[in-house]
């Protein structure tokens, strides 16, 4: 009996207590977003009311966010930008990864080095010259500016991740196809790519969430309401002067997080696989 109780105490201290604290710490900000977004201003700015629960829930913040701001437009922009930059990154990533995984060619080491170097260049190093170049090209305030620049952040790890998946395809399969007369390109598209679906899903999810996440380039390149993405729109336009519209801000933060969270929840295993294989930027 005492032994059993001691076992329980140890398990509580070694498992449930640290786990519980971690989960609460990790999730509290989301809980706070959700309940703040459901509160009336009256309740929000009254310090006498217990703030941890909602007393008079209202959807007014959501209605205002959707009818009075360009939130839906930002969501659409974010989606388009994320989809296109992910597509570009997957195609270019695969074009880099396949030869590196399978073919011995002069300059392969140089290409790998270039990919690693690109991977390690932090964005703040490039934003000043890029801002100047984007302006000179007349791409300021266009979605093209971010659709072109996001892949520079995404291609290196897409290539890295896909490289690992390409290497798992048995080379006997490719040899057999080549002996049967398939060209290298046909071998790639008909044999290798179909076998690497999970790799493309992992890389794609990563690229997509990172593209949704990006802030610095969007902040600099997109200064007009109609081209903004959700993160920039929320920071730049839901704060008017010094006035913070907390209810709307929290509604925007929650709605902006939901698409990513849903996609993530469907592919969590792929996501974790990619995370642990590629050790993504973070």
């Amino acid at each position, binding site marked *: 009996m005492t032994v059993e109780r001691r076992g329980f105490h140890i398990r509580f201290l070694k498992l449930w207590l640290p786990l519980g604290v971690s989960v609460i*710490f990790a999730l509290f900000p989301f809980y706070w977003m959700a309940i703040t977004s459901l509160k009336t201003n009256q309740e929000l700015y009254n310090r006498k009311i217990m703030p941890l629960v909602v007393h008079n829930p209202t959807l007014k913040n959501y209605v205002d966010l959707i009818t009075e701001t360009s939130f839906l437009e930002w969501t659409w922009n974010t989606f388009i930008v994320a989809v296109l930059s992910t597509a570009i990154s997957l195609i270019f990533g695969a074009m*880099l990864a396949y030869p590196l995984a399978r073919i011995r060619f002069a300059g392969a080491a140089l290409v790998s080095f270039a990919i690693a170097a*690109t991977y390690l260049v*932090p964005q703040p190093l490039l934003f000043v*010259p890029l801002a*100047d170049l984007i302006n000179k090209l007349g791409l300021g305030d266009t979605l093209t500016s971010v659709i072109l620049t996001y892949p520079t952040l995404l291609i290196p790890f897409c290539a890295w991740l896909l490289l690992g998946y390409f290497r798992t395809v048995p080379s006997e399969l490719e040899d057999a196809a080549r002996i049967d007369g398939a060209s290298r390109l046909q071998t790639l598209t008909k044999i290798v790519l179909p076998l690497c679906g999970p790799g493309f899903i992992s890389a794609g999810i990563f690229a997509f969430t990172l593209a949704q996440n990006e*802030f610095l380039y969007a902040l600099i390149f997109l200064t007009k309401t109609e081209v903004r993405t959700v993160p920039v729109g929320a920071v730049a336009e839901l704060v008017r002067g010094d006035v913070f519209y907390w209810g709307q801000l929290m509604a925007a*933060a929650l709605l902006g997080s939901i698409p990513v969270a849903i996609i993530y929840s469907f592919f969590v295993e792929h996501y974790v696989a990619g995370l642990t294989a590629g*050790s993504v930027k973070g």
Partner: protein
Amino acid sequence: MTAESLASAAAHPRPAFSLGRWLERPGVFAWLMVTPPVLFLLALVGYPFFYGIWLSLLNRPVAAEGTFVGLDNYINAWNDPVFWQVVLNTFVYTAAATLLKMAGGLGLALVMNQNFPFKNLTRALLLLPFIVPTVLSTIAWQWILDPAFSVVNWTLIATGLVEQPGPSWLGNPHLAMASLIVVNVWRGLPFYAITLLAGLQTISPELYEAATIDGAGTWGRFRYVTLPLLKPVIFIVTMFSVIFTFADFQLIYVLTKGGPANATHVFATYAFDIAMGGGQFGQGAAIALTMVPPLALLILAMALYLKPSKT
């Protein structure tokens, strides 16, 4: 194949040029594949990098042509007390956040490496801070740490731990830095924990059995089995974490914009202020580039210290 082509192939030691066959040569095929993405990256990463170096040598206001000023921008930064504050802030921020993420992430990974119900669900929930757009979750933190309506202060006051009105989390220079570090840890810790957990799961239980037979206790097993085998994973995760904490922008921009009184300015936010706020592209580019030497040194030092053994 026709008789003529056979004959010509026999007549010449080298076969006639065939585009199809040329494309099949490994070197040609490989370079045809990698050239478009390599050009793309050269145009949008390589070229801007060197253009940035050139910009940093110019006096270049936003709307005017630049004039060459040599190293003036770097000398200005050297003589600028705010710049040195930025250097110090960046190191404090990076060191504190990385150490906390490393220790906390390793701890959480060890906790998660036990068997318990709903393990996958817990793992998915713990990763949420890492996958949700950082700016949006940071806005939530800004509200949690609000000077007037902070829920942290409400809790502290309600439990009698502090007096009204409670600390100003983002208004006091030291607390502001501490708050930024906490938010950074909140965001980055799951990445450490989940990656290290995956590393832990690859360690064979037989090694622990062998260590136990050899008389190792819990600490001994951790010190002589877990840590050495986890070193390569710790190395990679820490390298990424250091680089991107060192160059962090969005979290600080949203929470404090470098304030109060430059107490939380880091390289990225300061370069942004100078280049975008002040319109001095040359000076901004120079400040951004000063990140390169310390970053390179940090990576080198870590590579030497944590170097995964090749055997």
